[in-house]
């Protein structure tokens, strides 16, 4: 049986994945790096990962359940290029006035990415705070009512041909962890085997004591 915070993360990924409907892509871990092409347009990414938890001493015991205040970070990314009337701009038959109008029609990539991230934050917030997801898919009574405490935004940053905006939502809730204990593996099966292997394979010179008792380095035993 795994601790509930692990099940909780998987459950949030499932909720977001089901509700995404092609509007974004959900990843259940913090990616090392993401190509802008991966998150451009409709492929905005949402990464869900557990960032930390607290175990208030007053709300737990060695003999019963332990309350776990969990923080799950939901990272959002959106990438955009400048958008405008590219058809008129590439048409060789366009007049100078049409070219000028086409150039004026372009919205900056940073502006587009900012709007796209705001929309993504709106969607994800609405999904997670929806009353139907009050238990976050964990079943009634397994998770305290969650709360999204903040929505931070960073950027814009240029990544290749695209401008990327990123942000994050911090979701907190409390779950009750069961203390089932873990006795590990009995020492004689592990440590004993290692010691036996060392004794068998180590050459005599390696195992020799470099400083036998009673002898000082560079001196004579008084």
């Amino acid at each position, binding site marked *: 049986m795994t601790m509930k915070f692990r099940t909780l993360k998987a459950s949030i990924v499932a909720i977001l994945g089901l509700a995404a409907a092609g509007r974004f892509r959900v990843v259940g871990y913090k990616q090392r790096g993401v190509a802008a092409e991966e998150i451009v347009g409709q492929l905005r990414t949402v990464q869900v990962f557990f960032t930390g938890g607290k175990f208030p001493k007053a709300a737990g015991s060695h003999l019963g359940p332990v309350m776990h205040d969990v923080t799950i970070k939901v990272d959002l990314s959106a990438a955009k290029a400048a958008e405008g009337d*590219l058809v008129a701009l590439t048409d060789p038959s366009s007049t100078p006035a049409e070219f000028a109008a086409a150039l004026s029609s372009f919205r900056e990539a940073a502006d587009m990415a900012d709007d796209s991230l705001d929309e993504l934050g709106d969607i994800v917030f609405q999904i997670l705070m929806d009353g139907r997801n009050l238990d976050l898919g964990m079943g009634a009574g397994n998770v305290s009512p969650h709360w999204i405490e903040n929505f931070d935004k960073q950027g814009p940053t240029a990544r290749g041909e695209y401008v990327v905006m990123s942000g994050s939502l911090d979701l907190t809730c409390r779950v009750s962890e069961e203390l089932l204990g873990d006795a590990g593996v009995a020492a004689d099966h592990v440590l004993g085997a290692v010691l036996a292997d060392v004794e068998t394979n180590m050459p005599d010179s390696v195992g020799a004591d470099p400083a036998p008792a009673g002898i000082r380095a560079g001196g004579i035993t008084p």
Partner: protein
Amino acid sequence: MNLRAQAEADLATTLEDPTLFGMPVELVSPDGEVINTKMVDGIATTEQLCGQVHYDSIETDDAGIPTIIHKPVVTLRRSSLSRVPLPTDRPRWACRIPESPLVDADIVTFLVENPTEGGGSLGIVRLYLTRAEQAVTP
């Protein structure tokens, strides 16, 4: 001719010669003027405007790791231009270049990213291009 003047004159070969590294470049100014021919000694000609295009460049990612990215950079001889794109120009300039260095490659249109880099001492201007996409009408 001093060394800087000689280097500037050499740009006709090192930067603009279409049989060497020169690639056709077309600029569209904010007021819609298309600039696709070069100036020689301040006089307009019918010669195709050419420059050097680097299709990939290096950027440092969020983790501080240099990454090769596809983002064209165009270097032009300043004296060949009838107008020079300025960082303050709005709306931005457009720039048309071949999609790849291959002969007969399709021409693609980019926007000139702000800022441009002027190499005054060597007589060049460098344009950093950014992708432009067709807006989707809701």
